[in-house]
């Protein structure tokens, strides 16, 4: 089975998942991102790498935050950005996903940034572009169902590398709703590829998918045990609709067992960093004292996210330095 995100030469054609990406490609993206970080500090925050290219943000599922970061990243690369909120547009008129893609391709799109509620949707688009010989059009997965959110995974890796330098001596804990989290899956694949010796998942059994061990993850259901001596804590957002029902009895009880408080944070390594993909639920998965505390790197994550997305897009467009 050919992995459609790599071309015949093993180069990145689309970015759909971190799973199966060679370490060299991940490192190349992170290295490229570091050259972009400084651009954001300049007075003129733009480079002409994607001048004349059209990036279509196709959001079949609402997201303000991720769409905005892609939009900023595109604009800093001097690309033209077109935002389409498809959730409220063509597919509700009955147009199929691939018809939408063909129509936009006919408008000479160079890149699609796709967010979709269904796992695997970006593969369908990438395969269609490859099958119809539109190899000049690239797909970036901006989050599909529970499957993957590779740019979030990469910006998390950038953040960890920034603060910890070396991946090969780390303990990383991912806490919360792993079952429904595409961020967790992308982080797990990235961390194991980059050689992190111990990746932990912490949560109640109702929020842990089966088969995590096969992904190279140590599973903990006790937060205190799971946090012991970790160097990085990645908190996950708990969606509102999952806070009460058959998965969890209440947000309050969840916070009691799995909320990250200063006391719990003290169990981790003294220089541990705390990450969160946002948006945060203060008082549900994370205590404000931690979210705003010295060990939190949640806002730097957002800043690095722009640079990482610039790196991904410029590499795909073949225009990076």
């Amino acid at each position, binding site marked *: *089975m050919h*992995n*459609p995100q790599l071309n015949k030469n093993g180069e990145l054609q689309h970015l759909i998942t971190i*799973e199966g990406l060679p370490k060299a490609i991940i490192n190349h993206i992170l290295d490229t991102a570091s050259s972009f970080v400084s651009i954001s500090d300049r007075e003129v925050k733009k480079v002409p790498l994607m001048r004349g290219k059209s990036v279509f943000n196709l959001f079949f599922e609402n997201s303000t935050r991720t769409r905005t970061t892609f939009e900023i990243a595109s604009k800093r690369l001097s690309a033209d950005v077109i935002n389409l909120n498809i959730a409220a547009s063509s597919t509700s008129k009955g147009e*199929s*996903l*691939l018809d939408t893609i063909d129509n936009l391709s006919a408008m000479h799109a160079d890149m699609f940034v796709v967010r*979709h509620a*269904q*796992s*695997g*949707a970006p*593969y*369908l688009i990438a*395969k*269609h572009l490859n099958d119809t010989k539109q190899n000049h059009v690239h797909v970036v997965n901006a989050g*599909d*169902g*529970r*499957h*993957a959110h590779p740019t979030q995974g990469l910006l998390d890796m950038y953040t960890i590398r920034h603060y910890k330098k070396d991946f090969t001596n780390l303990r990383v804990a991912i806490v919360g709703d792993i079952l429904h989290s*595409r961020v967790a*899956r992308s982080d797990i694949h990235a961390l194991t590829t980059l050689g992190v010796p111990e990746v932990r998942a912490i949560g109640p059994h109702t929020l842990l*998918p*089966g*088969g*995590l061990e*096969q*992904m190279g993850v140590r599973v903990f259901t006790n937060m205190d045990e799971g946090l012991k001596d970790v160097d990085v804590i990645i908190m996950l957002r708990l969606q509102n609709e999952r806070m009460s029902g058959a998965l969890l009895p209440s947000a309050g009880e969840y916070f009691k067992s799995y909320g990250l408080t200063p006391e719990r944070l003290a169990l981790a390594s003294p220089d541990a960093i705390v990450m969160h993909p946002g948006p945060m639920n203060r008082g549900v998965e994370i205590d404000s004292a931690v979210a705003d505390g010295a060990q939190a790197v949640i806002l730097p994550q957002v800043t690095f996210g722009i640079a990482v997305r610039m790196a991904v897009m410029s590499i795909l467009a073949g225009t990076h330095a």
Partner: protein
Amino acid sequence: MTNLHIKNGRLVDPAGGIDAVQDLFIAGGKVAAIGSAPQGFTAARTFDATGLVVAPGLVDLSARLREPGYEYKATLESEMQAAVQGGVTTLVCPPDTEPVLDEPGLVEMLKHRARLLNQAHVHPLGALTVGLKGKALTEMAELTEAGCIGFAQAEEPIEDTTVLLRAMQYAKTFGYTVWLRPQDPHIGRGGIAHSGPLASRLGLSGVPVMSETIALHTIFELMRASGARVHLCRISSAAALDLIRAAKKEGLPVTCDVGVHHLHMTDADIGFFDSNARLTPPLRSQRDRDAIRAAVLDGTVDAVCSDHTPVDDDEKLLPFAEASPGATGLELLLALMLKWAAEQGKDGTMSDKALSTALAKITCDPARMAGLAAGTLAPGASADVVLFDPDVRWTVNAAALASQGKHTPFLGYELAGQVKATIVAGHVAFER
């Protein structure tokens, strides 16, 4: 009806324990004789079957013809053509059409349409409950009179166990068989892939094996209470086969079939979200697949069906979870059974016994499960015959398929075994 003489073929009739080069003589739509011609027989047509296998026409326990209601997916014409092109001469179709087959008039119409086409014999299953809604029983006696050979819930499990018990008691009263695909109405509902490492990795919601086993425990208890005979459709897991093995040993009147895809594929064949591998029940683990293969050999599995489910492009070219489940199968059933048979030998050569077992699972055994006089070449039986070349290799692609459903996880596979002619009730329905 013309007299046919099929000569020099390797005649394999598992029902009669025959596997030898024998001539077959057909007269009046029936098998007239094997070996030497009956007195005064003159053939209107002679087939030279040298190098071919001559076997009973295939009996398929699950083929969706999509009529009435889903003619955009397939029509009776296209699917009956697919059947004979695949060597299938008798097929059983589930009641999940639109409208549901819960009224005698609909069944009569379907039987009538099928008869006019004069190809494979079509035997519908009636709905066990009105609209498959699991609330009220259908008129089973009337439906039987109209031509239903059993009663099924298709893909709609009955939520209320009392209704299922009553349905089984009522069916038992008249001696009807209840056809059920074991699935818990709650666990695994909305799931799209086998619960396991692959579904976790891909972020697909899962259908756990216990969805099948919990339902089986319930069905077996209800069988003990009601005495009803049950045929279990499309078993997908090793654990379920263990339960069925035990139930058979206990003496419960139960039989089961598996879909032919599950004989060869696992959830790993989903690959990069290939919607052609989106099936119901889902493809399971390698351990489950291996258990299914073994259970076909040891007889726990009584029959293998094509689980033929034509789906059109618009419903497959969608994200995996949104794609319609199902694959075309009528034209693959024979070749995929032969593939299983060849793989029973260590070096890939098919033993006589393996061929005979494979053919039994798609001819006489399913006919017996369904209570049909089919699947044999015994003199006097309906002359439903398939002639195939076991060695011709062909590649599965859309153009090679007569079915309107072009989607199958086997697209691009090279398979051995090609149908050369199909005879239904003494008339040549397909010839290549």
